[in-house]
């Protein structure tokens, strides 16, 4: 069975292209019934409010919650992380629906508007242990969320220092004093809890496929335990080449 990619809006094509580079077929998911044909799901980056609205119009939330409850592997990037979180702050007026399941609190647009978007080399020990390669990963943060709190069962995979400018609209309570105190504050940007994986940055926008193969290993481990679904991917015909955007390397 293939890996599903929620294709309501956002960078789903990029995820499918990354999966294709690893020889795995990605299937676009737009309707609840399509979830039954996949063994894992990636929720891509995009505008989380837009994706939530579209999911609501087509009644996807119950099916997605069921999918998470069944313990199938789900990976959320950026907007997907917000979807998976149990609690989100910095939402639009009236709030937005979440899938939940990941025991953490995220803050939307933690780093501010587009002008504060950035790239950073992240230290990712867990990924390096499993996947090898360079000790850091180029994280692309686009109006990214930050993880403020995590529950005890959540494993932290990566953190990034909070930029000196501070998140544009955080609570005024934690003001300048702390920053000047010197100790660099960090915010969590990648976590894992059971079969849920979440990143605030966009591995699908880089040529480095280690996060994707890390996620696929989570999927494989699970299907081996279940022992039923033995079939590996790509027995299907090679797809016609799909034209994708370039990936920029520094």
């Amino acid at each position, binding site marked *: 069975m293939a890996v599903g990619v929620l294709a309501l809006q956002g960078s789903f094509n990029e995820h499918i292209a990354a999966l294709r580079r690893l020889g795995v077929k990605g299937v676009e998911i737009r309707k609840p019934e399509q979830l039954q044909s996949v063994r894992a799901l990636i929720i891509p980056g995009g505008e989380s*409010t837009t994706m939530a609205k579209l999911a609501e119009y087509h009644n996807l939330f119950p099916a997605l919650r069921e999918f998470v409850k069944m313990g199938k592997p789900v990976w959320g990037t950026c907007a997907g992380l917000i979807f998976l979180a149990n609690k989100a702050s910095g939402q639009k007026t009236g709030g937005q629906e979440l899938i939940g399941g990941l025991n953490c609190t995220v803050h939307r647009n933690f780093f501010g508007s587009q002008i504060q978007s950035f790239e950073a080399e992240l230290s990712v020990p867990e990924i390096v242990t499993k996947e090898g390669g360079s000790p850091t990963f180029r994280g692309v943060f686009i109006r990214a969320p930050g993880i403020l709190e995590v529950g005890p069962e959540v494993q932290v995979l990566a953190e990034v220092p909070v930029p000196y400018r501070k998140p544009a609209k955080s609570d005024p309570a934690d003001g300048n004093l702390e920053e000047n105190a010197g100790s660099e504050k960090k915010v969590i940007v990648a976590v894992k809890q059971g079969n849920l994986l979440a990143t605030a940055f966009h591995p699908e926008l880089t040529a480095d496929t280690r996060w994707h193969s890390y996620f696929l290993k989570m999927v494989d481990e699970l299907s081996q335990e279940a022992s039923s679904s033995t079939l590996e991917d790509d027995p299907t015909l090679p797809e016609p080449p799909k034209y994708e*955007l370039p*990936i920029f390397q520094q």
Partner: protein
Amino acid sequence: MAGSGVVTVYGNGAITETSKQSPFSVKVGLAQMLRGGVIMDVVTPEQARVAEEAGACAVMALERVPADIRAQGGVARMSDPQLIKEIKQAVTIPVMAKARIGHFVEAQILEAIGIDYVDESEVLTPADDENHINKHNFRIPFVCGCRNLGEALRRIREGAAMIRTKGEAGTGNIIEAVRHVRSVMGDIRVLRNMDDDEVFTFAKKIQAPYDLVMQTKQLGRLPVVHFAAGGVATPADAALMMQLGCDGVFVGSGVFKSGDPARRARAIVQAVTHYSDPEVLADVSCGLGEAMVGINLNDEKVERYANRSE
């Protein structure tokens, strides 16, 4: 390399990045997050909220929608920054704003108030009829209009991180948007089948930088996100643009000049996601009330905004 889609940043340093904080990949990144979405023109914070509630992936903050600019005439300029700030405060989705073509100070002002994207737009009266803004000098990303492949690649070389086809804004008439999208896509198809030796002359013919033409040939598409704009008024129009191969849609006057904006906005958002599913399209197109009044472009007196820049 061609297969994996991995490329180095344009020009190998031929055009140096002026600021390391916001490399081109980050500028393109936001546009990539907008893919499969709808960007709506709004003139008040209330409209912005309606758009966000309907599922727009970004809003374009304006003083007047293109249909009103057309009707009222005169010189159209950048909107009052106060209005743009108010709209920005009203919503959590990205906010774009328009600057006049070549007016780099308007762009500096927009960058200073911290919006997410600048549209260097032919809908506003151009400030410079020969030069566009040198968009490499900015940390904020730009979207620019185009009518054909050459124009698109010239804008990308100037630093645009996103392209939209021009269409004919404020007319509610999709014909020009179709013409421009077909022109871009058609040229790319021709280019794909072209012998490498012929690309030099082709680049000269379409007046575009050779390296970008070659990159487009290898990728089989524009190297940045490509939206459609100018004349989209119905869910069917939006889905047509998507089926022609665009990454998303701008809707200008089409939403808030119609009978039931909230409903129409929502329908267009759904149409873009489910663009290849006629059943969903039929479903969302039902009972939307009156569409915006259209303008027949055979009329010689209608000013062509698309021809304002090359």
